[in-house]
């Protein structure tokens, strides 16, 4: 299979579509940026789809083309790792709406100009439908598992609810079945920061290369705080000053935590498109799996043969354990085989990206019980 041009790192495909979107519009053609790792077996039964978080991408275990940094889940995915690419065929694609090779506001519309804000508003389920198109293109009917953290976990739940026959197992980490008012509120702060940047110009900033970087940086700074825990921040920075002996009584980044957030914000605006941030946060805010199923979350999983595993972290206040429990209750009520564990880790919501050995054990045990 290795000579098959559909497989390997840094792939792009343009599928004819049309993709009918929840918002009523259709998308055609549908571009998808993706990567695959490992080898698809003859029975095509060893495929694992990994879904990425808000600002993630398909570069899960390969260096990021713009930053040169290792893939965002390189510690989890690879030969002999918890998601073992010697055993599994791993697929990761860039969600539609994003800016790393999939159709999004930066893509060209049929008139030859970037969509910008003419791009249709998308949902988590739309992202999943596009992934299903990719799966068809790869010639794979059924996934051994779909795995995702945060927004990736929303996609994993949506996969299991939308295509129950195509998903044997779903691993949902640090996620939720619906965005809370608090989640939406934080996202709105970020969107307003972007739209308040004079360089945003109604989203029409692609032509001259001057983007609303300052607004996007502020959005990232606010969001980044929600990804960490208070104790983690205190441990890392406390009230220590940055490269100075005393406070300046001004508005420079006196504190280390300020300088850290400014760096996070600026480096993010170098690699991410502001309009994509608007579209993807909107998709997350609209996510409510119960609402899609008559108000009863259990109905989303009724009759499902999919095995589920939910993992939360005790320091995650963005998607706290109660959100995972909410899903587990629904899974119990629907009779689906479900596992759930709250892991202890100091890193807040970001724990799923960081070194938490208990997570490795859960992931490998859940994905490969016979190993």
């Amino acid at each position, binding site marked *: 299979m290795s000579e098959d041009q559909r497989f390997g790192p840094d792939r792009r495909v343009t599928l004819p579509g049309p993709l009918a979107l929840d918002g009523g519009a259709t998308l055609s053609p549908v571009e998808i940026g993706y990567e695959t790792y490992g080898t698809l077996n003859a029975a095509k039964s060893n495929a694992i789809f990994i879904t990425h978080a808000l600002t993630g991408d398909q570069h899960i275990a390969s260096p990021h083309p713009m930053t040169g940094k290792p893939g965002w889940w390189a510690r989890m995915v690879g030969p002999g790792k918890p998601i073992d690419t010697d055993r599994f065929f791993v697929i990761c694609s860039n969600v539609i709406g994003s800016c790393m090779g999939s159709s999004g506001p930066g893509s060209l519309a049929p008139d030859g100009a970037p969509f910008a804000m003419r791009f249709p508003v998308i949902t988590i389920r739309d992202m999943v439908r596009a992934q299903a198109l990719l799966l068809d293109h790869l010639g794979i009917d059924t996934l051994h598992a779909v795995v995702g953290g945060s927004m990736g976990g929303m996609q994993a739940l949506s996969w299991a609810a939308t295509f129950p026959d195509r998903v044997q197992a779903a691993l949902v980490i640090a996620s939720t079945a619906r965005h809370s008012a608090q989640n939406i509120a934080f996202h709105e702060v970020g969107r307003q920061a972007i739209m308040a940047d004079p360089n945003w110009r109604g989203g029409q900033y692609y032509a001259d290369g001057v983007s609303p970087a300052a607004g996007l940086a502020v959005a990232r700074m606010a969001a980044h705080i929600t990804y960490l825990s208070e104790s983690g921040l205190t441990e890392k920075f406390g009230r220590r000053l940055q490269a100075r002996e005393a406070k300046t009584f001004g508005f420079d980044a006196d504190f280390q935590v300020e300088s850290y957030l400014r760096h996070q914000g600026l480096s993010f605006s170098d690699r991410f498109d502001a309009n994509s941030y608007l579209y993807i946060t909107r998709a997350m805010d609209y996510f409510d799996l119960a609402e899609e199923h008559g108000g009863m979350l259990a109905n989303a999983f009724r009759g499902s043969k999919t*095995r589920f*595993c939910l993992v939360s972290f005790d320091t995650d206040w963005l998607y706290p354990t109660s959100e995972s429990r909410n899903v*587990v*209750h629904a899974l*119990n*009520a629907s*009779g689906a*085989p*479900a*596992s*759930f*564990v*709250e*892991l*202890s880790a100091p890193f807040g919501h970001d724990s799923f990206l960081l070194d938490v050995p*208990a997570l490795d*054990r*859960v992931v*490998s*045990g*859940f994905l*490969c*019980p*016979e190993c």
Partner: protein
Amino acid sequence: MSLRADLSIIADHVRSGSRVLDVGCSDGALMAELRDRKGVDARGIEIDGSDVTAALARGLSVIQGDADTDLADYPDASFDYAILSQTLQTTRRPDRVLDQLLRVGSKAFVSFPNFAHWRVRASLLWGGRMPVTRSLPIAWYETPNIHHLTIDDFRAHVRERDIKVEGSWFLSGEKLTGEAVANFRAEHAVFLLSR
């Protein structure tokens, strides 16, 4: 690794291919045995996170949760058997947990350490101290056991509640002991119950 004696009795008497909920399943030893030996569809609830992780690593379906509160999430008769092994004495309301067990399971296996065993009696009677024995190995200040009970207490309770005893086994160490003197001689009891 061989199963603890009370678990081994339960494993022997669970019907092949049945659906089982193991409440307080620890690291999933019984569930794994039931799955591998009897093709049982086993689910577990366990309060301790590291035990849940261990059971998950065995490929089992286990939910971190509390027997006192979380059984309410399961529909009626969703399992052929609900199992509560050495957990009853750690619950806040054992009576309600038993009711829930017999609601979600058609039958229930319940095992518990017998507080009327002669060694326990001797320890309290002659030593004047709360017993620390083979089956109750933890000192009073750190024991998870908050509702100690005896075999006769349990018999009386199920009689009052019109719960049927379909089977009972009494263990002294690893060995079965007779029913008549069980309250005195047995360290552990296993009951199979139904409504």
